[in-house]
């Protein structure tokens, strides 16, 4: 049973309020090592410089979007196995299919509850303590 506090998370979203909301949810679950990036490029730089166990990324970001970030992580061997959860505002089948092709680990539909966020993370890491 992994400890939430031992899992490092990077949140990538261009909207500060959404980042705050995700961070608050993660902290409520028990995560302590949480950092943020304002877009896909910043997230990629951050995770290359300091790997994270989990990236939670919005799909819709300017420049490098969520799919682009996912793809970039998956082709970069040192971080290729980073768990990746995509935040999305709609159940766009094509988007979800593309994300799956690039190895997304799970999705969270917005608006979401903390319980849903936890459930989706646990589907990737196993039950958290």
């Amino acid at each position, binding site marked *: 049973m992994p400890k939430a506090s031992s899992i490092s998370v990077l949140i990538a979203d261009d909207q500060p*309020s*959404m980042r705050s909301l995700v961070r*608050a949810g993660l902290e409520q679950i028990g995560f302590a090592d949480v950092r943020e990036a304002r877009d896909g490029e910043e997230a990629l730089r951050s995770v290359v410089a300091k790997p994270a166990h989990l990236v939670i990324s919005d799909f819709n970001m300017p420049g490098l979007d969520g799919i682009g970030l996912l793809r970039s992580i998956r082709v970069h061997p040192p971080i290729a196995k980073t768990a990746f959860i995509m935040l999305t505002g709609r159940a766009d089948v094509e988007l*979800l299919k593309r994300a799956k092709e690039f190895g997304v680990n799970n*999705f969270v*539909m*917005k*608006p*979401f*509850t903390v319980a849903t966020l936890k459930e989706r993370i646990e589907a990737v890491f196993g039950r958290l303590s």
Partner: protein
Amino acid sequence: MRSAALANRPLAGREPGDRHVSVIQGEFQVTDDPAVVLTTLLGSCVAACIHDPVARVGGLNHFLLPSGEGRPGADHLRYGVHSMELLVNGLLKLGGRRDRLQVWLFGGARITRQLADIGASNAAFAEDFVRREEFTYKGGSLRGDTARRIQFWPASGRVRQLALPNTPVEVLPVAPSRAPAPATDDPEFF
């Protein structure tokens, strides 16, 4: 979630050539059409009118947070954040830029003394959102105890408020019109 419903009753200040589009609770509209006037009727709900003066696009939403304790990160805030995100993303798709967005906020009234002040928490959320997002706050009118009708010309950024004292609007504690589906209804792929 873009409403296409047209207003069906006369509005104060209607001008020739204007096409009034009503935005109801839980919805939003964005457009660059200079003939469109977005209108909404607010009680304890809040509407954000957002405009990009360079791209000449704008939009308006109308949201209500469910009752909550107002603590940061509480689940009830997700409705407001999501509503705002949809509006902002709609503007970006029309050519708007985040660093140019100007915001007016309206609503958040306490319509009845018999209920918790939902309007105040809606207003506080909206102000906090604008601050966090570092948008340019142009003003507006929040709180108070009267309903308001808002008219917003999204392409020009002109906005007008009509106070509607004694208007019976949202006098009941209203759940969000589009409650998020339970987790079990979310798409599950794994």
